[in-house]
Every structure is written in C-alpha cells, then in structure tokens.
C-alpha cells in the first residue's frame, strides 16, 4: 500500500473506519472538526451512521448505546467537550463498554484557547470523571502513529471492554504527513464475541443488561475489585514507550510525549551534533505510565528534563518514577504557545552548565 499525504484529523477518522468503526457521534468543537466532518461523509459509505449530537453530553451517551449494542463506535472532541463527556465516560467504564474517544487537546482552563496544549494529562490519566475507574490513554507523536494507535485503540477497547482515549493536540489534528494504512490488518488482541451486547434476546440466552448500578454494596465492591483487576492487567501488559538515541551515552534524559517529543527529537539531534550527550524517553501510553522504563533510562543519566505544554502534569509521574534518585528540571509553555527546539537546546545546555534550577515536586 502506498503512502498518502493526509491531514491528521482525516487520518484518524479513516484509520477508525478501516478498523471497523461503524458509528460516530460528536459535537463540533475546534480544533478537531475535520474528524466528524470526514466521518459524516465516510461512514454512510461503509453502512455505518454519523449523528451530530446536540451536545458532548449526548454524544457520550450515544456512544454508550451503540457500544452496548455491540458495534465499534467512536467520538472525538477537544478539552472543554471532553469535560462534558465525563459523565458518559464514567458510565461507559462502569458498564464496561468499549469505545474510542479522541481528545485533540487545547489550552485551558475554561474556554481557554484553541491552540495546542497538554493540559488535560491529569484529566485523562487520573481524574476523568467520578468513581474508581481508568481508561487506557494513548499519545501519538506523528500522524502515522495517530492512525496506528486509533486502530489499536479499537482492539484494546474491545479486549478490555473499556473506553480507550487517544490524546493529541492541534498539531496532530492539523498537520499533514504521509500515512500508510496496513492492509489486511489483524486485531492485536484475541477478541471474544460480544455475547454481552443488547442485540435482542431470542430466547437462547438470559436477557442482557448493560448497567453500572449496583445498589448492594457487597456486589458493587466485587464489581470494583473486578474492574481494578482489569486495570492491573493493563498496567502489566499494555505499557508502551519509545526511546530516542538512548543507545549512545547520555548525560541528560528528556521525558516528553506527543508532538512535544517531536520538537525534543530535533533538539536532541542538534545537541548531539555539538557532542552533548542527551537522549529521550517518550511515553506512548500515558495510562498505564511507563514508570519502570523512565526510571531505568533516567538512572543512566545524571539529570532528567521534563518538557510539557502544561503547568507541570506528567512531571508528577516522572517524579514518582524517579523517587528523588535524579534531579528533575522542567521546561514548559502554556496557553497554546509551543516549545521550540532552540528552547530545549538552551535548557539542556543550562542544565549542563549548572545554571538551570532543579524542580521540587509536591
């Protein structure tokens, strides 16, 4: 299959269709509108359906219904819209329904702005909504990886019967890059038939009920224990990360994810040209977080630099991973401003020269 030049949003949508997504429900919000727009054109071609919901609240409950009926379904939004979907996502997790949710993050809080941000890291990985639950969170750094991760997200959602979130930013959504869709792609997991779905009870089985209500506390606790076991399995089996130039000696380890990691890779190449030992560990799954990998890679360096488009969110997980074994430095921009390769280069040099202040977390 030849490579095709595609806008990130359209590549995400096409990847979903090719992974068997039959339904899309969403509400317009910048900067991700090309995803629903593409789906409104494409899904009817494959016998699926697109509905422009009246709100993100409704969209998150429409995907609940469709997932409960056993079909592959997706929604996409951007930060304020994902906050409105929080209700539905908690019910999806509680009822163990497989859906894929794409969040093209924009700067906040509140209405914020429409430019790129990583300010929803806490929301995605720690506090998406009420109740004890987790969702798998995947963070691509290129259009190709966004397409691949969206396809994997459908398999992971079905396998774990759990929402999977793909987080990108405006750069992932708007950038154009060559994309290749894997022909004859096989699911990355052994997927069981959806015998639990509400497809109508023909008498051959008891009625199926999709539900997150357990009024008996003992029963609910058993449900919580089962969910926790599922999340533990994700932690054991689904951690993904990539390393950049860790084969060579390095003194500074950068930890960054998403498009920020792309910027950092450019900076690392420049620094290496000057003979400065710097490498990067890039988390691809934000939950489960690659704590072990971050720690192991960091212990080979004398200091760690975290780069984020937020006030400092992932840095707390880096702090947990390192347990004060290495000094952590921090470089960030907010409000839709981007980190430039030059800023990363300057920060690393400052760290080596001793003019950068270590960050104390918590």
């Amino acid at each position, binding site marked *: 299959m030849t490579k095709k030049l595609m806008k990130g949003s359209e590549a995400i949508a096409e990847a979903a269709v090719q992974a068997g997504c*039959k*339904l899309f*429900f969403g509400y317009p919000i910048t900067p991700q509108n090309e995803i629903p727009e593409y789906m409104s054109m494409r899904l009817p071609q494959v016998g699926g*359906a697109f*509905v422009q*919901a*009246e*709100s993100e*609240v*409704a*969209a998150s*409950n*429409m*995907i*609940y*219904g*469709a*997932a*409960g*009926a*056993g*079909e592959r*379904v997706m929604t996409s939004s951007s930060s304020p819209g994902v906050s409105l979907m929080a*209700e*539905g996502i908690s*019910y999806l997790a509680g*009822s163990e329904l497989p859906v894929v949710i794409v969040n093209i993050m924009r700067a906040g809080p509140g209405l914020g702005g429409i430019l790129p941000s990583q300010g929803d890291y806490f929301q995605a990985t720690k506090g998406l909504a009420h109740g004890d639950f987790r969702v798998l969170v995947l963070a691509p750094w290129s259009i190709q990886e966004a397409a691949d991760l969206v396809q994997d997200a459908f398999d992971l959602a079905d396998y774990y019967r759990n929402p999977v979130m793909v987080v990108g930013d405006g750069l992932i959504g708007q950038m154009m890059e060559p994309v290749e869709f894997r022909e004859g792609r096989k699911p990355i997991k052994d997927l069981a038939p959806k015998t639990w779905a*509400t*497809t*109508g*009870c*023909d*008498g051959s089985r008891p*009625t*199926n*009920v*999709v*539900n*997150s*209500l357990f009024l008996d506390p003992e029963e609910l606790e058993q449900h919580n224990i089962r969910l926790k076991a599922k999340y533990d399995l994700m932690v054991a089996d689904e951690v993904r990360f990539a390393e950049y130039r860790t084969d060579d000696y390095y003194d500074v380890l950068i930890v960054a994810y998403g498009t920020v990691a792309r910027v950092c890779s450019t900076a690392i190449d420049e620094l290496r040209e000057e003979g400065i030992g710097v490498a990067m560990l890039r988390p691809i799954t934000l939950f489960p977080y690659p704590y072990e990998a971050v720690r192991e890679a960091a212990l080979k360096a004398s200091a760690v630099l975290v780069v984020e488009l937020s006030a400092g969110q992932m840095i707390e997980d880096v702090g947990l991973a390192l347990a004060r074994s290495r000094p952590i430095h921090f470089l960030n921009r907010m409000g839709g401003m981007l980190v430039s390769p030059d800023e990363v280069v300057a920060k690393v040099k400052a760290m080596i020269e001793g003019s950068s202040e270590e960050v104390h977390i918590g």
Partner: protein
Amino acid sequence: MAETVFARPESLADVTTHYCPGCTHGLIHRLVAEVIDEMGVRERTVGIAPVGCSVLAYDYFNVDFQEAAHGRAPAVATGIKRARPDLIVFSYQGDGDLASIGMAEIIHCANRGEKITVVFVNNAIYGMTGGQMAPTTMPGQVATTCQLGRDVESAGYPIRIAELISTLRTPAFVARATVHNPLVSVHAKEMLRRAFRYQVEGRCFSLVEVLSTCPTNWGIPPAEAMGWLEKNMLPYYPVGVFKTPEGGSREPKPLVG
C-alpha cells in the same frame, strides 16, 4: 379444556417490584409488556431504564436492557437504534429524568426523528429522591423543595411535554394517556400500541406521556391517588393524540366514555 384468558406477559419478568402501594408504574410496565408481546417483537426489543423510580426497570422487563445516566435515555436509544436499526428500542422515563435534566436529549431525539418509542411517565413529582418539585409539579402542589406549594412566580408553570414535542415539525406520534381507571387504561394501551406500531413500521419517533400517581410523595393514602390525579392533573394535562406522522391535529381528542 380451560382456556387461558389472563396471564403474565412474556415480556414482563416474574418478579416482585419495589413500587409503592398505589403507584401506577407496575400497571404501565404491564401495558408496555402486553404491547411488546402482541407485536411479537420481544426477541428484538431493547429497553432503556432511566434514573428515577423506574431505575430498576431492567429487572422487571424480560427483554434486553440498558441503564442510562439521568436524562440521557433518548441519547442512549439513538446510539442503539443507529447501531442496529432492526431492533425495537424504547426508553421508559419519568418527569425529572425526561422533562428536567434530559430536556435537551428528548427534544433533539424527537427532532431528529429517531425511530424509537418513549414512554414518559408523569407523576408530577420526584419519587426516588424523596418528593422534590418536578418540572411537571402542579401550581400550589406541595413538594419537599416547595413546601409552601409550587409558586409559579418563581418556578414557572408545569411543562406540558406532549404539547411541547408536538410543536416540532419532524413527523412523529405524540399522545398523552392516563391510567387512573380501567377504561382509560385501555385507551393508554391503545396509545402505546400505536406508538410501537409506528416504530415497527419504521415510520417515526413516538412518545406517549402517561399520567401516573405517587401517593407516597403526594402525601395521601394510596386509595386516594387515582382521584387526586383525575382531579388535579387531568384538567391541566389533557389526554389524547397530539400529533401523528400523517399530520393529524394538534388538538387533543376527548376520551370517549
């Protein structure tokens, strides 16, 4: 050989419900179940339970069910029906669920013309949470959050859902019925039958508002609940057909008899 003239519908589970004495949820459940049986669609029906007194409806109907978040049943129904248009999808919602927190979802579901059926049970009060004021609570009616009676100056007038939905241009079947005596219950069943039939025929969205009782939170003996409904609710919430996909009159037709 004896002929069976009355039995539990197959679509109704053989269980005891948690409904209070004098509450008509059980009766309305039965009418819906009878209609599903008569249409022969039990095996391809999916119901959606609301948040409210009928939150456990999935235990009482013998069909596949999904439990929705508060007010979101029409959105969940949209998801199910769009995923599997061959299924017969109905939501069963109370007045707090549909007419308050779920107003956006019901309006837009109806306006898109989703081919689903909504059974809207209006008992003019919040039951499950303990008798708070509903959007459908009558003027002057006492509730735990309007203890001097509903003041229309600050809380507005009760919302007439059947009338409201029937103003939408999208073809639909919209009716209001009541179950405060056997004769009107027969009419209510006929309204439900028509609503489900329109869906089975793939014609349109359908909604039947059914006036219901809540003696527990109205603070009256169960035996007086039917009379209270007839005296206080019926004049404000007229019974009849408000809209048909053929373009029928919006004026309610009087009950015969």
